[in-house]
């Protein structure tokens, strides 16, 4: 197969690595993370995602990412990462007057 295998270090259950699944519900929207699954390689992960996450017409496009490829922020870094944004109300767009009759702002 030409599709890449997940890195060997990926957490495995019965030897199958974990994959994160992103689905785009329709054209114009972005892909959203919907969950994860196990699969032996990327091509099978894509098919498993189709079976597990799009059975009820949820999507038009699927992305698969090896879970091991995701770099996540750590709970220990929560304060320096996120607290400084809490008291900066001027970053919110609440100081503009929205003209009457503008419905899609």
């Amino acid at each position, binding site marked *: *197969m030409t599709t890449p295998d997940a890195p060997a270090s990926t957490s495995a259950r*019965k030897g199958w690595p974990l994959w994160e699944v992103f689905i785009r519900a329709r054209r114009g929207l972005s892909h959203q993370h919907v969950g994860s*699954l196990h699969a032996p*390689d990327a091509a099978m992960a894509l098919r498993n995602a189709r*079976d*597990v996450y799009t*059975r009820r017409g949820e999507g038009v496009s699927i992305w698969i990412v090896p879970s091991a490829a995701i770099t996540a922020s750590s709970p220990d870094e929560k304060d320096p990462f996120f607290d400084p944004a809490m008291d900066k109300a001027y970053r919110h767009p609440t100081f503009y007057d929205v003209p009457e009759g503008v419905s899609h702002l």
Partner: protein
Amino acid sequence: MTSSPSAQSVDQTALTTYVLGLGDDALILAQRLGEWITRAPQIEEDIALGNIALDLLGQARTLLSYAGELEGAGRGEDDLAFLRDEREFRNLQLVEIENGDFAVTMARQLIFSAYQFELYKALLTSADTTLSALAAKAVKEVDYHRDHATQWVLRLGDGTAESHDRMQAALNQVWPYVEEIFEGSDTTATLAGIAADPTALRPAWSDYVENVIAEATLTMPTPKWRSRGGRTGYHSENLGHLLPDMQNLHRSHPGATW
């Protein structure tokens, strides 16, 4: 042979038999695949096999309802599925064989879905509008079934030494049921333009399946015997064990719904 004058000289009896055969293939294989639920190697595969089984069950419902209508004896899909006995089933013997290990199920699935894909492609141009409409919907479903089985045969065949040996053993076990699929009959001969001639489906089927087997580093089996008779109601003992499982609920509680 009777033929209804209202039906543009189509042989209704032959058409009923033909539709029943296709419906029984889908129904019996759906039942077999359903047996994997809670037993598949992974929950992801459990869902995949369940989806495929439900696609087949949907096709079976359309075909059996239509067969009942053609027969004109007031039998509906449930009567045909749950109240017929072994000798009245018209399915290929391939679909009734036991699941075996996962490799056997995938070997059977590759053979059957590659056949069904060619079948529905041919039925797209059938003069019978019920069959052509079903084919238009089902050919997309079966395209996926075929891909799913292909992916597994490739991985098991070209995997470890053990998976290779077991995949090869599975192909050898299932191959005696291949000849029967592509056998023409009086029924299909009578229905030119309506039914798909099974013999004509074989070249495209062979191309596809032989490619998969070669790419999976497996060898084409050379069986020493072949099955026959499913389309005329002759079955292996496997069907006798499958039917009580499938029919018991309906026979114990006629018309049960939930």
